């Protein structure tokens, strides 16, 4: 009897591991920045490059930092969701235009709509490195104290906006 039970148990355990593995996304590398202060930067605004923006400027507010680029295909999928979110006026979304040409970024926003409170140009991608960006789009939820509370790697979908990002924003809004 043992002859049959033992291989069967081994098989079930192995199949269990493989089944769980199927639903894991190897691209979703957990960010070490969660729970840490959003790295400081000082970047020019896209539309007004002489003006600079730093995360210090929005301390006391809950905000989203959305890393995007005009050359990024999945940013186009996520764009209408951001436009919709901006219309509802729930949370300010700051765009980090990652390794992009100014004119390309402006053209994209002109044709697809501009959901951003402010767009910042990270032309050489250095701020991206500080935020651990490895694939655009990526979105960070930053609280009133300037702490990164959540990171979405890959495009925002209706589902994770509804289930993760918006509840997180609502929760953080209630905190001092």
């Amino acid at each position, binding site marked *: 009897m043992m002859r049959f039970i033992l291989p069967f148990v081994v098989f079930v355990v192995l199949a269990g591991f493989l089944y769980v593995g199927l639903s894991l996304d190897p691209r979703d*590398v957990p960010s070490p920045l969660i729970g840490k202060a959003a790295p400081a930067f000082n970047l020019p605004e896209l539309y007004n490059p002489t003006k600079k923006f730093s995360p210090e400027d929005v301390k006391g507010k809950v905000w989203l930092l959305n890393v995007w680029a005009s050359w990024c295909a999945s940013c186009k999928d996520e764009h209408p969701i951001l436009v919709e979110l901006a219309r509802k006026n729930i949370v300010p979304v700051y765009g980090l235009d990652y*390794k992009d040409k100014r004119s390309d970024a402006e053209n994209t926003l002109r044709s697809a709509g501009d959901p951003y409170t402010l767009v910042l140009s990270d032309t050489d991608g250095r701020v991206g490195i500080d935020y651990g960006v490895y*694939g655009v789009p990526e979105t960070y939820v930053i609280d009133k104290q300037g702490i990164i509370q959540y990171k979405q790697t890959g495009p925002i979908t209706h589902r994770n906006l509804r289930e993760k990002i918006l509840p997180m924003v609502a929760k953080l809004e209630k905190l001092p």
Partner: protein
Amino acid sequence: MRRIFILLLCLMPLFAYAGEAKDMATDQVLEKRMIGLAEKLRCLVCQNESLASSHAELAADLRREVRELMTKGMSDQEIKDYLVARYGDFVLYEPPVKSYTLLLWFGPFALLLVGLALLLVQLRKRRSAMPEVALSSEAQQRASALLNNEKDN
């Protein structure tokens, strides 16, 4: 005229050496150190390639970053820490020994021990299943006769 032409042709190979990769630094020692370190780091875009061999744009940026940090005088360990603070342990090809990597590090050895134990148990079982039987003197004689016969041939 013809001689000059031939001479010029002979000089042609001098211009034919391969151009260096675009982001090579001028400092060869630094570049070697950078590549050495980058081989131990994972490119986050391709995931199965090292930072040294990846052609992804991010990898080029990170090589530039590593090079600059080295120029600033940071040690290899400091640079690793710098990258881990941004991208997590995932950038290291060799994961650090931590509570949640214990299984990864020592699991194979545990499996080996389990395998050896199972093998020993099986061998013991087999030995007890086949008890040694003493040969009767008649059989003994036949056996030696056969063996001796063999020798004579």
